[in-house]
C-alpha cells in the first residue's frame, strides 16, 4: 500500500471486489501505477469460489505480466481443438492439430483455484492489499455516488469501486445496473474434474509433453437442450462437463445433473475417462447473452468488469470469458488511473471506460459475434445436424455391398430422411456465416 498517495477521506483509492481474472488484472494494473488498492475476495483463498470450463486465450496477459506464460500455473497448451457432433450412436469430429498453436501459446488450460491464487499473489507483490474471506454485502452510497463497500458491520471507503464479482454480480443489482437477467442469456455449466495419470492423458489424447486438447461437443450430449459439452485436458486431470441454456433447460424438463451424467457416460466419451478418479464436481453460471447482456458498465464511482459486465462469448468454436475479463481489467485500470489523477469520479469521467473498451478487441469481438446467441437458439444445432452428418458419413464408410452413390445424392438422401429441410439447411448455413 502506498500510504503517501492515499487521500485522507478514503481507506483505499480503489476497492476491487472479486479476485478472479478481471479483478486481479484491474487491481494489479492500478497498484503498478502507484495507487492504493484493496482486493476483496469472498472465498477463503482467491480462486476458491471460481470455476471455468478451462481454456484461457491468454495472449492478453502478456500486456499485464510478461512472465505469465513462463510462471503462471498453466496446465497445458492447447494444440488440438476438436469440434464434435455427438449422437447416441455416433461421434463426428473436426480434429484440428497445429504445432504453431504450441509455439504461440495463445490458448492454455487452467484450473481457477490455482490460477487465481497465483494472480492474487502477483497482485500482492506489487502492493495490492488482498483481503480474502470477506463477503461484500453491498455498496456504500452518497446520493447517486458510490463511495465504498459494506461488508457485515464494516464499511470501507474508496474513490472508485470495481465490481469484479462475477456473473451473479450482486453489486450490479445493488447499483441498479441489472435486475433479473432473462434466462436465455444464461446457461449453467456443470463440470467434473477427473484425475488421470499424465502419461494416460497424453496417450489417450495423442499429445506430446505439455500439449493439450480441447473438445467442444454439440448434439446429443445435452439431449437436445441448447448448449453443449466440453472436455479439456489438464496436466494430470480432465475437466469435462456440459453447459445448458437455462430457458431451454426449464422448458424441456431435463435435470442438469442427469444431463452431465449422461454426457460422461456416453459410449464415445466414457473411454476418455476410464479408470479416472473424481477430484471435484462443480457448477457455475455462464453469461451467454453476448452483447445483449452487456448493460451499463459504470455509475459515478463504480466500474464493472469481466463476467459481472456480461463479457463472455460463445462463437461455437471457442468459448471465451477470461481473455475478455483481462481485457476489460486493463481498460478499467487505465480509466480509473486517469480519474484518480484528475480527481474526477463522475459518470462522465468513468464513461471513458465504456468508450475505450468498445475500441479494443473486447468491444470489437462482442460486436462481431452479436448475432451468435440468436444463432445458437436454433434447436437444429442440438440434434438434427449431428444426426445428418453421421448419416452421410455412415453412407460413406459402411460399404455394405450395395452400389455407392456420389456424395451429393447421398447427402440429399440423408437430408430426405432428416427432419431438416434443404431450405432450412441453406438458411441456417447463411445465418452461421453471418453470425459466427
Amino acid at each position, binding site marked *: 500500500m502506498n500510504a503517501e498517495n492515499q487521500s485522507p477521506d478514503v481507506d483505499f483509492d480503489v476497492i476491487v471486489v472479486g479476485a478472479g481474472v478481471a479483478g486481479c488484472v484491474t487491481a494489479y494494473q492500478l497498484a503498478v501505477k502507484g495507487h492504493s488498492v484493496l482486493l476483496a475476495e*469472498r*472465498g*477463503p*483463498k482467491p*480462486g*476458491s*469460489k*471460481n*470455476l*471455468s470450463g478451462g481454456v484461457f486465450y491468454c495472449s492478453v496477459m502478456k500486456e499485464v505480466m510478461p512472465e505469465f506464460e513462463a510462471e503462471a500455473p498453466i496446465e497445458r497448451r492447447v494444440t488440438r481443438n476438436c469440434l464434435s457432433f455427438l449422437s447416441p450412436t455416433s461421434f463426428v469430429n473436426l480434429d484440428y492439430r497445429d504445432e504453431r498453436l504450441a509455439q504461440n501459446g495463445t490458448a492454455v488450460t487452467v*484450473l*481457477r*483455484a*490455482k*490460477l*487465481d491464487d497465483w494472480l492474487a499473489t502477483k497482485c500482492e507483490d506489487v502492493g495490492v492489499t488482498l483481503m480474502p*474471506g*470477506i*463477503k461484500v454485502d453491498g455498496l456504500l452510497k452518497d446520493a447517486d455516488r458510490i463511495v465504498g463497500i459494506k*461488508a457485515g458491520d464494516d464499511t470501507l471507503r474508496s474513490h472508485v469501486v470495481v465490481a469484479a464479482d462475477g*456473473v*451473479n454480480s*450482486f453489486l450490479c443489482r445493488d447499483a441498479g445496473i441489472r435486475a*433479473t*437477467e432473462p*434466462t436465455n442469456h*444464461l446457461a*449453467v*455449466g*456443470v463440470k*467434473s*474434474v*477427473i484425475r488421470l495419470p499424465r502419461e494416460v492423458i497424453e496417450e489417450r489424447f495423442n499429445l506430446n509433453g505439455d500439449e493439450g486438447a480441447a473438445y467442444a461437443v454439440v448434439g446429443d450430449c445435452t439431449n437436445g437442450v441448447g448448449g453443449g459439452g466440453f472436455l479439456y485436458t489438464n496436466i494430470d*486431470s480432465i*475437466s469435462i462437463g456440459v453447459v445448458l441454456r*437455462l430457458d431451454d*433447460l*426449464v422448458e424441456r*424438463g*431435463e*435435470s*442438469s*445433473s*442427469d444431463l452431465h*451424467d*449422461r454426457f*460422461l*457416460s456416453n459410449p464415445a466419451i*466414457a473411454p476418455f*475417462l*476410464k479408470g*479416472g478418479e*473424481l*477430484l*471435484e*464436481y*462443480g*457448477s*457455475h*453460471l455462464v453469461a451467454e447473452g453476448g452483447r445483449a447482456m452487456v448493460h451499463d458498465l459504470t455509475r459515478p464511482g463504480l466500474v464493472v468488469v469481466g463476467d459481472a459486465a456480461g463479457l463472455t462469448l460463445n462463437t461455437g468454436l471457442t468459448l471465451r470469458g477470461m481473455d475478455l475479463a483481462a481485457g476489460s481489467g486493463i481498460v478499467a485500470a487505465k480509466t480509473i488511473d486517469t480519474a484518480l489523477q484528475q480527481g474526477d469520479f463522475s459518470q462522465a469521467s468513468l464513461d471513458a471506460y465504456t468508450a475505450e473498451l468498445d475500441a479494443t478487441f473486447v468491444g470489437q469481438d462482442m460486436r462481431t459475434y452479436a448475432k451468435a446467441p440468436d444463432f445458437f437458439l436454433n434447436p437444429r444445432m442440438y440434434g438434427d445436424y449431428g444426426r445428418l452428418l453421421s448419416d452421410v458419413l455412415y453412407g460413406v464408410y459402411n460399404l455394405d455391398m450395395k452400389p455407392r452413390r456420389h456424395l451429393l445424392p447421398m447427402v440429399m438422401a440423408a437430408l430426405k430422411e432428416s427432419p431438416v429441410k434443404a431450405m432450412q439447411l441453406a438458411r441456417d448455413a447463411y445465418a452461421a456465416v453471418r453470425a459466427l
Partner: protein
Amino acid sequence: MNTNQFGTVTERLDRNHYETDVEQSHITVDQAAARAADAGPLLVRICPAHVYSIQADGTIGVMAAACLECGACLAVAPPGVLSWRYPRSGMGITYREG
C-alpha cells in the same frame, strides 16, 4: 436417472470441500409462494447439487450445505419464491480445482 462411473451426485459432492455454516442457511424458500407457482420440481431439476427436494408434506426441502453457489436456481425461480445470497464470509464451497 443416469449414473456414471463416478457415483451418484451425493457421492461426488462428498469429494468437494465445504466450510459448512451451521448457524444460518444462505437459501430460504417462501413455501406459500413456491406452492402457488409449483416451483418445487423446477428447483429440483435445475440444481446440479441436488440442494432442493420435495418433502412428504409437499414443501421444498433445502440442503444449503451442498450448494455449489452457481446461482442457477435464483435465475430460474419464479419471483418471490427464493431468497438466495452467497454464504457468509469464508463459508460454503471451497473449490480446490475450479
